[in-house]
């Protein structure tokens, strides 16, 4: 791996060196490194590009890293990764994609991740997207996440895209069974002429299931964002989604929430707020000695932290 790829790896996975536990590192469309453990197996798919990750029932406190880095300008790929998480397992999965494009071709990575989380298993899933390079070629990323939670299972997903991705369409679908819970926290910042679209769609099919979608975003300059969330309550369940956006300069943000209750005991809430940085926040920080620009940075950094 070269320095550019190492830097991408550090940005998306926080990795300075080879991680402990299971991992699969993909660089420019090829497997660069892989490690499996007694409880976590990783195999290459035969019918398409991608891997299967199988986590044995009862696996505790183990982690899987599956970062992807692209530094070859003009490379386009679609990768299918399936996670099978056994009953009562409790694991952390760290994915992420970094694109460095210093050429003129469009680089594009579409990761399709499917999670099959068995009864009472717990997953923490962290995903980071990052782009760098000063070429004229665009950096595109279109992550699709499909989540199936069995009874009593839970998945917490943290997804972050702060810099450098020109266009992204992020689709997340989930089906949640009885007593299962899903939490998704998303943080997005766009600038320049970037476009980011988020599309959540969650079905709560079992009693006492719950979902909480929290999106915080900042749109700067001429960038555009679209946030769609669709929550369907088919049972006695709790659903909550929240879209909180700061808009700056000439940016544009749309939030389109959709709630459907098909059961009298479905309790669904959506909150959306879009607005510029409050003038009194800027003023307070300026009375503490920051310039207007410094104050703005503080507020944005805090908001996306």
């Amino acid at each position: 791996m070269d320095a550019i790829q190492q830097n991408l790896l550090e940005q998306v996975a926080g990795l300075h060196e080879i991680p402990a536990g299971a991992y699969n590192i993909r660089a420019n469309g090829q497997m660069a490194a892989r490690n499996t453990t007694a409880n976590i197996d990783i195999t290459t798919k035969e019918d398409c590009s991608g891997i299967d990750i199988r986590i044995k029932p009862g696996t505790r406190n183990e982690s899987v890293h599956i970062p992807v880095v692209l530094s070859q300008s003009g490379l386009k790929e679609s990768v299918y990764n399936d996670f099978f998480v056994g009953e009562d397992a409790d694991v952390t999965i760290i994915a992420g994609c970094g694109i460095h494009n210093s050429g003129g071709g469009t680089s594009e990575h579409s990761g399709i991740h499917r999670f099959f989380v068995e009864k009472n298993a717990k997953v923490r899933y962290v995903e980071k997207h990052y782009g760098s390079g000063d070429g004229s070629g665009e950096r595109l990323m279109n992550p699709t996440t499909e989540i199936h939670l069995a009874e009593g299972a839970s998945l917490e997903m943290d997804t972050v895209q702060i810099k450098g991705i020109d266009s992204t369409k992020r689709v997340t679908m989930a089906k949640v069974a009885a007593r299962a819970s899903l939490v998704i926290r998303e943080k997005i910042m766009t600038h320049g002429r970037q476009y980011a679209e988020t599309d959540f769609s969650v079905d709560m099919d079992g009693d006492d299931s719950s979902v909480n979608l929290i999106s915080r975003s900042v749109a700067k300059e001429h960038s555009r964002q679209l946030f769609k969330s669709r929550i369907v309550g088919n049972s006695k369940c709790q659903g909550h989604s929240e879209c909180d956006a700061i808009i700056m300069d000439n940016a544009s943000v749309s939030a389109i929430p959709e709630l459907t209750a098909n059961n009298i005991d479905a309790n669904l809430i959506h909150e959306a707020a879009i607005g510029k940085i409050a003038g009194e926040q800027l003023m307070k920080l300026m009375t503490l000695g920051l310039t207007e620009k410094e104050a703005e940075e503080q507020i944005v950094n805090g908001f996306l932290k």
Partner: protein
Amino acid sequence: MLELKGICYSAEDENREAEILKDINVTVDDRFVAVTGPNGSGKSTLAKIVAGILKPTAGQILLDGVDITDLSITERANLGISFAFQQPVRFKGITVRELLSIAAGKDANMAEICNMLSEVGLCARDYVNREVNASLSGGELKRIEIAMIMARGTKVSIFDEPEAGIDLWSFQNLIHVFEKMHEEIHGSILIISHQERILNIADRIILLADGQIKKVGSKEEVIPELLGAGAHCKTLTDKL
């Protein structure tokens, strides 16, 4: 020393010019100066004009002889003016530690944060990593706001109704904070307040009414005026 010369401020209110401050002339070089007067008399507007949040329509503001009338909020802050808002501002994602560090102008460590927060009756352990968001009560925010002003330690500190919402923490502690600030900085503390107990510690009281200075003097001179100031109806006077 803070000097206000001929300060006027008017704002548009329902399509007509409302004169909020009219020809304010006053010099502040004492330890504690209280600004008092009925609601709507222009007290908060005066504080905002000194901090640079509002620009006066006429007049001059001097800080230690330097004209600061055209300086920005930031420039005034860096020259030594601090302003505790009447209604503290909330920030999603910014922690108490970060805000106090910005106020102090350096990355404050745990011992320093503990020192700042304990002055306002808060335990650093419980607050240092909390976000300054809607999870904090009005009283907690108000105390953090006061701690920020202490952390800055500038020569002029303005407090807009610091006592409002200070729930269980006592008045005596608030006064102790002002005394301590003065001991450490030897600056001037300008306090906007209706509270007699705060007026009682003031070296000088400025009484504003209807956008004008009605009286400036010691508490002995001003407080009697204040009590007789309102022309209340009989029902209210009987209950006072």
